[in-house]
């Protein structure tokens, strides 16, 4: 299956059917996106009017396309899509992105057009993404088929599969403007007449550019095949999935207890457990976990240490860890003694670490640096979360020391969160994230993300 999807993600030549010279139109923006992303393959816009769009020569008909086009992006009204698909297929094109909406997701007429598309796809054995898709992105090739104005999409090592137009458009926009990490591939599944989540997962599972896979999905097209593929992929890479809409549809009237208790959501839950896929429940975690996978190794266990400037945080975050299945282990006597050495004696040092008295006594940077290094050395600790208290008044240390620690202890994830002045947090984020240390605005987030990573680590190492 990988081979058949290579032209999608590594196209040597692309045709845009429905190219437009009018700025703001999808048929224009897709070309702008492709150029902005530095695509070096051949690009063939098609529009009966001919001429040039953004400096690229336009072909006046599908029939005038060369025979070597890897992918055609069809951005025409739903009603014109089937005809264009046929003509492209006659030109020998086998891979398509059907961008327009107006199919089965809209009304009966749209559903009929979609049925026709399905017939053509079967008859001519085509590979189709969509329809009603926000397109796909492949940063190693500098290629995207999205028509949502994205500008240059940063390259990274996590990939996304999304059965929603929102991800490849606005969520990706947020990641590009609000976060520092990039993406390897993004696939918007749309109405899934051809390519589905299992095809995409299989490709990404074998993709050397992809080190973690995050999925948003509304329904499984081929559950058994998904299970078979995911079962293999999850032994090599983290696979995280958010599933929406636990509907009651398709449920039989039940005579037996088993059937009565078989809610669709429970069956999905079971299948994902079986597959080693880590289920998440929050859309935001698609972004936050993506950030963590982009920057951190997976923790080798669920032992976490954190350093916080307040008793309230120490206790509430300990409780929170407990709820998340994270362990805040007692540390070795040696570790405790070393922590005690940097702290005033009236504080009883332990895990989690009450760091602020030490910060007052020895300086903010010294206390956090020493405290973090001491806990990083403890064998029971698999990951460390410093809650950095940052205000101008108390002093804002140069965040470089955290980068140094992350480099010195490369097997133990460090996730940074904050208390204090927003502007100082933003400075830390801007300084740390490009250096590979993720930061999190809210104090619960690093723990939520860590628990996802621990579950991924367990899935990868699960017994056969």
């Amino acid at each position, binding site marked *: 299956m990988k081979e058949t999807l290579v032209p999608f993600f590594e196209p040597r030549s692309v045709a845009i059917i429905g190219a437009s010279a009018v700025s703001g139109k999808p048929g224009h923006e897709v070309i702008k996106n492709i150029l902005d992303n530095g695509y070096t393959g051949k690009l063939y816009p098609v529009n009966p009017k001919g001429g040039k769009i953004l400096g690229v020569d336009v072909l006046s008909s599908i029939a005038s396309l060369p025979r070597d086009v890897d992918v055609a992006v069809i951005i025409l009204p739903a009603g014109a899509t089937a005809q264009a698909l046929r003509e492209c297929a006659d030109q020998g094109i086998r891979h398509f992105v059907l961008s327009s909406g107006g199919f089965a997701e809209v009304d009966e007429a749209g559903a009929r057009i979609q049925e026709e598309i399905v017939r053509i796809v079967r008859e001519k054995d085509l590979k189709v993404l969509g329809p009603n898709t926000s397109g796909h992105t492949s940063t190693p090739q500098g290629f995207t088929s999205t028509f949502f104005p994205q500008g240059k999409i940063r390259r990274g090592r996590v990939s996304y599969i999304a059965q929603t137009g929102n991800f490849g458009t606005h969520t990706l926009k947020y990641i590009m403007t609000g976060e520092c990490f990039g993406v390897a591939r993004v696939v918007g599944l749309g109405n899934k007449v051809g390519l589905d989540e299992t095809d995409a997962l299989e490709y990404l599972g074998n993709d050397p550019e992809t080190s973690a896979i995050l999925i948003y999905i509304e329904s499984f*097209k081929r559950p*058994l095949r998904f299970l078979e593929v995911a079962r293999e992929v999850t032994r090599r890479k983290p696979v995280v999935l958010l599933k929406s809409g636990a509907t009651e549809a398709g449920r039989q009237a039940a*005579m037996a*207890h088993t*059937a009565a208790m*078989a809610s*669709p959501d429970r069956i999905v*839950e*079971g299948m994902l457990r079986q597959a080693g896929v880590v289920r998440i429940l929050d859309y935001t975690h698609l972004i936050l976990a993506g950030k963590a996978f982009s920057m951190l190794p997976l923790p080798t266990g669920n032992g976490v240490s954190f350093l916080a400037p307040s008793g309230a945080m120490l206790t509430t975050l300990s409780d929170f860890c407990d709820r998340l299945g994270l362990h805040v282990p007692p540390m070795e006597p040696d570790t405790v003694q070393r922590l005690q050495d940097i702290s005033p004696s009236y504080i009883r040092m332990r895990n989690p670490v009450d760091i602020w008295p030490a910060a007052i006594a020895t300086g903010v940077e010294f206390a956090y640096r020493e405290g973090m290094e001491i806990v990083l050395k403890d064998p029971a600790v698999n990951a460390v979360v410093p809650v950095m208290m940052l205000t101008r008044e108390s002093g804002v240390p140069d965040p470089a020391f955290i980068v140094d620690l992350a480099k010195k202890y490369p097997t133990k994830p460090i996730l940074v969160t904050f208390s204090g002045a927003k502007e100082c947090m933003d400075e830390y984020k801007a300084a740390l994230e490009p250096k590979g240390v993720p930061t999190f605005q809210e104090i619960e987030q690093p723990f939520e993300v860590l628990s996802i990573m621990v579950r991924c680590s367990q899935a990868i190492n699960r017994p056969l």
Partner: protein
Amino acid sequence: MNWIADAVKAGKTALNEYEAKRFLEGFGIPVNREMFVPDGEKAVKAACDLGYPVVLKATGEHLQHKTELGAVALNLKSEGEIREEARRLLAIADCEGLLVQEMVKGDRELVCGLTRDAQFGPCVMFGLGGIFTELIDDAVFRMAPITTAEALRMMEDIRTAKILQAFRGQAPVDREALARIIVAVGEIGCQYENVREIDINPIKVRRDGSLVAVDALVTIQAKASGVRP
């Protein structure tokens, strides 16, 4: 004996409890000792063979929720009790005969079952069983077929997983045996498209941790629907 094919041929919607247990026994699922008898006198004789105390149940294709119908008499200790209860049970509508069973001791009750999801196909459930099964609602599912390792993981995934450990002086549950039951139910789901659903509830845990199914329901569908995408 091909219980399922015969039931389909006869147009049945379910096996009765006796047939269901014989069917499940064929897959190595441990079931209680029992005899199927037509009347009170034969029930008395069966009780002598099985040893007192016994359980007496009205059995039939359409008797699926026996407790609710008053179709179960537990802990019968004498011939008199058996005769009296037999008369009452035989009068229940749809009663095809009586099931005389050994009384199995053990406080812990588990459930294992099969359902068919329109999209996911045959799925196996494992959870906490007994009369409060749906009330407590502590169960997990997997798509069939299921590996032994997966069956063992299911045991860890229920909220009350601790009940499988040593409990009030009783031995830990025999997990290998439990895994064999779960795997077998998955196998049935894959092999027999005419089996629509299975409830093995309860699976009693004896004091020594061994397992025995004391009630079972197997429902039948004439038309196989378990086609998986």
